[in-house]
């Protein structure tokens, strides 16, 4: 069960609400308790209704913080609101977040991420920065200690770790699972001595680093290369951090495959995730099918939500035929 929350279910509130203008903060705080408890996203779009996402569906919010049925009855976000949010999420220092803005998100203390949309400014065909930022997706990150408890027996065998690929559609808990796998491998658990782990956290999602310090429990033997491109990070880790396991998310570029193979040759185990709804979907993607056909990964875990977010639907062996899991497990 993915239930053992660290601290209170509302521990996200302080860092998240600090980024909102005082009146929007009051609206969010006034939301009905069940919605607030499972809040996933706060959507702020200039000149459009304030919305929140909770338990897999979205709601309009009015001035009093009540959920309403229509956009007309809801609070309409102003230009001043978005201007204020941009300053607050960057601690009044947009200049210090050039790279993050270029990538379209800023990570808050606590590992929560604020995605941004605006007008892209291009230079030599690449995004130089975002201008007129007018839309924010404040995504609340929740740490689920114990999320990997049931996965560990498939990922490890005695003191060995298998090369593992986690396949999942978005918002199905793959980052949560990766984070807890990192913690368990790093700290160790009955029957497994902790090993050195490096997390290559290109999008600051796994460890939720704030100014380089992990805000999530990622284990005592874990080093985090925060904001580092995966392929570069894997090579850096191999050279200088002597890990037994490298954990990274959302592999999908050709250079990632090269780096993964490099790690393999160095005797380092890789645990990675990729976007795919299931194995057949992954096999239709040139990059993933290439990796899978090389039988690099010894375990392929497919996540879904048949029993709720974070359900392990299927676990395959490297030959992609042997199913190690009889029924979905959560």
């Amino acid at each position: 069960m993915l239930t053992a929350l660290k601290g209170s279910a509302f521990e996200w509130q302080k860092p998240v609400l600090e980024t909102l203008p005082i009146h929007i903060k009051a609206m969010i705080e006034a939301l009905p308790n069940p919605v607030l408890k499972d809040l996933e996203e706060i959507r702020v779009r200039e000149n459009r209704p304030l919305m929140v996402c909770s338990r897999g569906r979205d709601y309009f919010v009015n001035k009093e913080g009540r959920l309403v049925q229509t956009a007309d009855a809801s609070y309409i976000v102003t230009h001043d609101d978005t201007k204020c949010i941009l300053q607050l999420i960057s601690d009044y220092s947009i200049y210090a977040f050039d790279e993050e803005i270029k990538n379209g998100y800023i990570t808050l203390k606590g590992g929560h991420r604020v995605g941004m949309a605006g007008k892209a400014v291009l230079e030599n065909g690449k995004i130089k920065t975002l201008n007129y930022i007018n839309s924010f997706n404040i995504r609340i990150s929740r740490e689920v200690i114990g999320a990997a408890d049931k996965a560990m027996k498939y990922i490890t065998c005695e003191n060995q770790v298998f090369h593992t690929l986690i396949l999942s559609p978005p918002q199905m808990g793959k980052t949560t699972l990766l984070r807890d796998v990192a913690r368990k491998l790093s700290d160790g658990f009955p029957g497994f001595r902790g090993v050195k782990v490096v997390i290559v956290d290109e999008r600051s999602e796994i460890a939720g680093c704030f100014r380089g310090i992990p805000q999530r429990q990622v284990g005592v033997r874990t080093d985090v290369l925060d904001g580092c491109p995966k392929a570069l990070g894997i090579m850096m880790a191999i050279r200088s951090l002597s890990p037994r396991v490298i954990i990274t998310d959302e592999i999908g570029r050709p250079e990632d495959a090269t780096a993964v193979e490099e790690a393999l040759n160095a005797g380092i185990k890789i645990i990675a995730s990729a976007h795919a709804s299931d194995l057949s979907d992954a096999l239709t993607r040139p990059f993933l099918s290439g990796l899978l056909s090389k039988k690099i990964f010894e375990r392929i875990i497919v996540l879904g939500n048949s029993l709720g977010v974070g359900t392990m639907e299927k676990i395959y062996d490297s030959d992609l035929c042997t199913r190690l899991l009889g029924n979905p497990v959560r």
Partner: protein
Amino acid sequence: MYVKLVTSSIIVGCSTLIGFEFAKKHILRTRQLRELQGALSRLESEILHYATPLPEALARIGTSTGGVIGDLFSHTGYLLSEKRNLLASQAWRQSLDRLKDRLCINEEEYDILYRFGDQLGGGDKEGQSKYIRLTLTQLYQQEIKAQECRQKYERMYKSLGLLGGIALAVLLL
């Protein structure tokens, strides 16, 4: 006779002090404009080279600058770090307004500073640097004007105070 001498000394003394007080405003204006330029140059360096968060950069510059200009930066930094729902421009404006009694700059210079505040913390490194440089140029021009005024009026106010006092003393006594 003795009373007359004491009274006229008091009149001359007071009048001279008033003259010095008027002259002091010109001296302080020049000094504050120079300090502002120094502080803004440091802010540019904190932004460009160290990407220091604005509240921290302002507090640091405030401490090292001292005086009323230091207070302007420190107080803005304090407002940004404590009262999280102000825009940087609002915090800067509030600090300027709060220190109006101690600042010796004129309306034109206030406008320059307000305009600078409107852009504070609101752009990338390049943009912030550009605004700081523009403000520095404008403040430098104001400093030249202030120096001219100082040369013109400092001695005049001081002499006027002294001579006015003597004249008053002669007339009254």
